[in-house]
């Protein structure tokens, strides 16, 4: 139960969501992730630690470098993991509807 709450705390933070977003398509090192933020490097490290502790991120050693990648399995455990996906389509369709309503009225 505790762990579950931690997952939600983890994704409630905008910086941590941005980190998950960054590594969504490719594994990245902590240094590469940090270059995307103005936040101090130790702060980014702390965020990475939190995300790793609640298993949303996993670490993978590649030579001397440690890479971070998302743990899809864990993401699934988030009850409403599908909501952002639904929201993305909802936003697109809202826009489509607006555009075509204007299209209709200008015709």
């Amino acid at each position, binding site marked *: 139960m505790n762990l579950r709450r931690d997952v939600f705390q983890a994704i409630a933070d905008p910086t941590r969501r941005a980190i998950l977003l960054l590594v969504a398509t490719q594994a990245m090192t902590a240094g590469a992730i940090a270059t995307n933020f103005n936040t101090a490097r130790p702060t980014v490290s702390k965020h990475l630690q939190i995300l790793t502790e609640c298993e949303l991120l996993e670490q993978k050693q590649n030579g001397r470098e440690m890479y971070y990648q998302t743990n899809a399995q864990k993401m699934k455990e988030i009850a409403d993991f599908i909501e952002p996906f639904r929201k993305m389509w909802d936003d697109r369709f809202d*826009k489509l509807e607006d555009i075509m309503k204007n299209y209709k009225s200008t015709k």
Partner: protein
Amino acid sequence: MEQKTKIDAEKGKQEITITREFELPVDLLFKAYVEPEIVAQWMGTKVLRLESKKYGSYTFETSDPKGNVVFVASGVIHDFVPGVKITRTFEMENTPFAAQLEFLTFEKLSEDSSRLTMHVIYKSVALRDQILALPFAYGINMAHNRLQDILGNTKISNHDKAD
């Protein structure tokens, strides 16, 4: 609040169904999928090519505000019946995500309303879940703007400590 867009994603299946009802005549809804400049507007992407016909193909390209290409998505149109259906593939190039098969069905509900059903089939259950769990991965063209927003906000609040 009522959810206009519904997603049906049964556990352990490699498919999903997206359903949405529009306050638009079905021909206008269909047009939004056919005209390149309209597709570009609501998908938030550059439409490099869109041959809306049977055996046609398409290429979308999304760039960041600096003009760097974020990703290119492409596919082929397997079936095309105006106002009724589009069957096509969709693949994001140079990503680990395999192509998916999309069945788009357009239905007339009344003179001024219509329904779109998008039945998407993925290569595996794991791939489907990965894409669902990470909407940014699937819809990076839209999510990209959101990423910019989030990163922008992050920069404003850069004195915040990680809690």
